[in-house]
């Protein structure tokens, strides 16, 4: 040890070339610099060109960072997919040099139970970055978690040095401002990017699908968020707690029910503590991603049914057909080995039971519509309602650009099921927000219905959907439009203008799902195409003012504030004098 040290010391006493270079770069003598807070030193670090030949290019590299509740994805702008994905796990919360997770003992079955801590959701809490409830959040801890995950990603996957690079951060648009502020604090003080640009997740997804308007169904971990995007603007958002976390908890419930020890117990008493867990989160999460599937939606109901009491009817119907279609298959059981329970065992589950968690999590179709609270609407209803809330023209655009994303979108059959059920809801109800007996009576009574009512009524029960009407209308329009064109077509200038334009009509008014390359890749496209992000925050401005320095988005003149993300496009002088915003996150 001392030999190493003294060797280094000897090297230090002679003026080595690298030191002299360093001294040229930073004229401050080392003795009078207080080194205690290197991060906050106001002197900008020279973006040096030591050693690596790639130094010139480093400024061009833009890092794209997508933060979710459970994972962080990072890569370079222009790449098709992120280079690295880091999941937030409990082992990240340990101290450096604590290798307990690697010991064979940590794999034993009951060890996770000793981690039991206080508070709600201790079961899954360490696997998440944040909870949107800011009241209990430890913002510093969130910053630390982001920093550690980011460092791991940078070292393991990105393989880049710690030279400052511009960053683009893709964040869910519902992120509370304190959390955003914690993340930005951590980024700016620890990694020292010159600027951080913010992009909202739905917009990045929309760009990633190649459209300008869309309905994003983000089947996320913490909650499902449905966002309508019109012309790259988020116009409406609705959410439901039915997300991945609930799915894993439902999976746990299913597995725990089938545990031999619990089946014995059930004979004794049925009361079960909801906060008690028999299996570890890791195992349930694993099984949920591996085995859980979703029953398909019956795409073509044989007979049209009345809208009233639909969900229960529908459920019954489905199970009948499923049983009929696969009466032999239904008997098949799936053996699942469980290791985290008190005594490792293998349980046998009927194949059908593995569809229960997703059924209970996303649909809960055994209950009536009125029994749900606003925060726990079943997903088809949520999609339908958020479409209903949209203005007519926006709805026409959005309903034919439905993008499913998020972790739970990989539950087999779930996307198709939601899509089918929403289509069915639209078919049955049309675009009428009024439901119930009174409304039905009103529709049935010819005396009561007015002009508009008659139209709605005819579209409802008969299954003549308004989308098809819209299509009809468009066709009518199209005919007329053609006629108009023939009269005006003589002008050669117009012909010239029209050549480059696309005359194909936009798809609208019919249900259609499209695929996005993903939020990260969408952001990568945006950064690659050098489009201006909603908000770009400069490091100095943030360190000086924090979130309070941001001005309201409406107060900023976008034309002057806009900066190009391209190399050299950033004019520092003008940018510094400009006010900056936090985009959607700083709205209120």
């Amino acid at each position, binding site marked *: 040890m001392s030999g190493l040290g003294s060797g280094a*010391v000897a090297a230090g006493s002679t003026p080595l070339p690298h030191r002299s270079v360093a001294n040229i770069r930073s004229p401050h003598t080392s003795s009078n610099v207080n080194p205690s807070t290197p991060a906050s030193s106001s002197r900008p670090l020279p973006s040096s060109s030591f050693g690596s030949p*790639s130094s010139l290019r480093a400024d061009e590299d833009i890092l794209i960072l997508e933060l979710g509740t459970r994972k962080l994805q990072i890569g370079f702008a222009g790449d098709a997919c992120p280079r690295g*994905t880091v999941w937030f796990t409990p082992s990240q919360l340990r101290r450096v040099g604590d290798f307990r997770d690697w010991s064979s003992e940590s794999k034993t079955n009951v060890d996770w139970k000793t981690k039991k801590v206080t508070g709600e959701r201790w079961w899954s809490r360490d696997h998440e970055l944040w909870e949107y409830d800011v009241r209990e959040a430890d913002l510093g801890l969130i910053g630390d978690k982001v920093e550690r995950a980011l460092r791991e990603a940078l070292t393991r996957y990105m393989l880049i040095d710690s030279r400052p690079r511009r960053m683009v951060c893709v964040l869910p648009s519902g992120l509370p401002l304190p959390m955003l502020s914690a993340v930005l604090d951590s980024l700016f003080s620890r990694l020292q990017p010159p600027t951080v640009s913010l992009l909202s997740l739905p917009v990045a997804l929309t760009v990633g699908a190649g459209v300008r308007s869309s309905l994003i169904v983000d089947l996320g971990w913490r909650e499902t968020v449905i966002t309508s995007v019109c012309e790259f603007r988020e116009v409406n958002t609705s959410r439901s707690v039915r997300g991945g976390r609930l799915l894993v908890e439902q999976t746990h419930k299913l597995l725990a029910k089938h545990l031999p020890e619990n089946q014995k117990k059930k004979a004794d008493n049925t009361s079960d503590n909801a906060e008690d867990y028999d299996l570890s989160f890791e195992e349930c999460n694993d099984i949920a991603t591996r085995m859980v599937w979703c029953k398909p939606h019956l795409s073509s109901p044989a007979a049209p049914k009345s809208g009233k009491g639909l969900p229960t009817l529908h459920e019954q119907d489905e199970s009948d057909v499923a049983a009929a279609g696969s009466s032999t298959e239904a008997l098949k059981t799936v053996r699942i080995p469980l290791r985290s329970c008190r005594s490792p065992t293998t349980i046998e589950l009927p194949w059908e039971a593995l569809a229960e968690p997703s059924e209970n999590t996303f649909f809960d179709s055994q209950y009536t519509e009125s029994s749900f609270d606003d925060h726990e609407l079943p997903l088809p209803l949520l999609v339908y309602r958020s479409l209903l809330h949209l203005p007519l023209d926006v709805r026409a655009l959005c309903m034919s650009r439905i993008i499913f994303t998020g972790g739970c979108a990989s539950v087999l059959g779930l996307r198709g099921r939601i899509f089918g059920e929403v289509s069915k809801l639209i078919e049955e109800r049309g675009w009428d927000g009024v439901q119930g007996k009174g409304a039905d009576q009103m529709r049935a009574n010819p005396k009561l219905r007015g002009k508009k009512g008659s139209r709605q009524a005819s579209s409802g029960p008969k299954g003549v959907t308004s989308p098809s009407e819209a299509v009809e209308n468009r066709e009518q329009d199209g005919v*007329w439009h053609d006629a108009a064109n023939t009269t005006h077509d003589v002008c050669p200038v117009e012909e010239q203008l029209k050549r480059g334009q696309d005359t194909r009509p936009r798809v609208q008014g019919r249900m259609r799902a499209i695929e996005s390359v993903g939020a990260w890749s969408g952001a990568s496209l945006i950064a690659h*195409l050098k489009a201006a992000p909603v908000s770009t925050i400069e490091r100095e401005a943030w360190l000086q003012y924090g979130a309070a320095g941001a001005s309201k988005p409406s107060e900023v003149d976008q034309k002057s504030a806009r900066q190009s993300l391209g190399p050299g496009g950033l004019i520092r002088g003008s940018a510094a004098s400009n006010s900056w915003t936090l985009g959607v996150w700083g709205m209120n």
Partner: protein
Amino acid sequence: MAPLNPYTYIQCPCSDSASLGRPSDATSPTSAEADDEDNTFDPRAPRANFSLYPLEYLLYCEDCHQIRCPRCIAEEIATYFCPSCLFEVPSSNLKSEGNRCTRSCFQCPICIGPLSVTSIETPPSDPNLLAPDRAATQHSTYSLICSYCNWSSTEIGIQFDKPNSIHAQLAKIRNGGASRLTAKERKERRKELSHRGGEAAVAAAAAAAAASETSGGQDMDLETQFANLKLFYNSQLADPNAGDNGFSSLGDLGFSSPSSLSRIMNLYTGGKLHDPRAKSKLGAMREAITADEGLLEPDLDESSLISQLHRSDFLDTASSTQVCSQPPNLGEPHLHGAARFNSSLRPAPYLLRTKRSKRCPVCRHIISKPEAKVQTTRFRIRLVAGSYIPSISIRRLNLPGSNGPGAPAILGDLLEPLKPVHFLLTFKNPIFESLKVTLGAPAKTPGRFPSKVTVLCPQFDIDANTDVWDEALKDNDRESSGRSRRRAGTESQFQVEVGKIWERGRNWVSIVVEVVPASLKLEQGQDLLKEDEDVLEIPMFVRIEWEVENGGDDATTGSGRDKDQKEKRELAYWCVLGLGRIKQG
């Protein structure tokens, strides 16, 4: 419960809560306590785990005289290399080829073991053909085989024609053996299309579009869709008719700009009824319409996958750790982020690694620099903190008087609650100057179960780390000079005295800490014990002072400016001593 070896963690001064900015957790009980006790460091606070490091992880900047932890270090990359073949990768490749080894180094997708290329012996179709030249003429194929779990790439239907450049071959094969176009080939094909002049091109493009619309949906993988989208957006942005506001509305939240106003107006007044001349001014970028432009309609009917899942066993599906260790697969159609079956896993090329040199972020001096050669593990410069700040080792002290029948204390023994225990802390001075050490520890450890701590000798000097032989030669003198150096043999001297050093050596000093462990009895309504809450951890503030003589032995004076006088230096930091587990119940 695992026995606990005593440990020492050091908090890097860079992560003082003050320097981290906002007092974020004002509501949480831990910080409230910290305020009461005048900013005692709480090793149990969740944030503490992010700033504590073992001594071995810390470096030291000689010019700033400061500890540097992995969080406050600027890194530069010396070499990129593959950990499997130890082949050095030029940094220019990294951007274009990605962060994985592009030779033939692969990890098993099942067990992460290294894969090796093995030729597959096809069973001879004609058994009586045993001519000697048969082996030479036979066209043999190769596969990747894991020598640990016996996984073979034939299980996922992948075989190779050549035993080398597996990476390039693998990029062209889908699981199951179907071939796919790589990005380069696609680009060339596109170029070919555009080069063909006139009507032929239009016809070909139309045909291609038609073909891709029918079969494209299934064939379109992530990479293709991304490339198509990129091309589409580029063409749209380059289109003079599209105006300048392709993505501009991304930045437009207000409706203040005239272009967004006009576009919104156009949305409502526009449509087919609108005057075509006005429409030409609209100039918004249009949407992607065909698959060639990146629009992809997913196949929402996943019943085939469901029935595949139905047929397969639990063990046929890929576990989440296996999926996580897969590289992002550009070649597959959307699986919504995850491969599900073992058959859809692919061999993972090794992630490249780096050798990094580290600089102090403040003064830019190098504090660690590895040899550039991949094969060597030596460092040219490495200023580890262990050779600048005293190390602390912990031993349990068994006093014959206090602990009954002087049974030797075993490390990792459980601590008896409410019974005083003595620990011996040995501070070892690594530098060539004598150190003055001041310790500070809270009388009660923070947390739910406060144990009482008394540092019996909070202030002492440690002699310099002189040459071992000097010490050996001087040994007799010291003995006679009456330094309080205790010997293990003299039992009568085993008595704990306040303010006295327990034992002293050439460059080390031992002191005694008395601890009364708390009782871990839970009262009614209290929460259960958290993980490691039974470990007795003492936060301790260590302040060391030393004087640097300039001129003579300039061990620590890299920058000897003022030659005449002695320079006084100090360093202060929190550290955490983990002493042992307290017996429960």
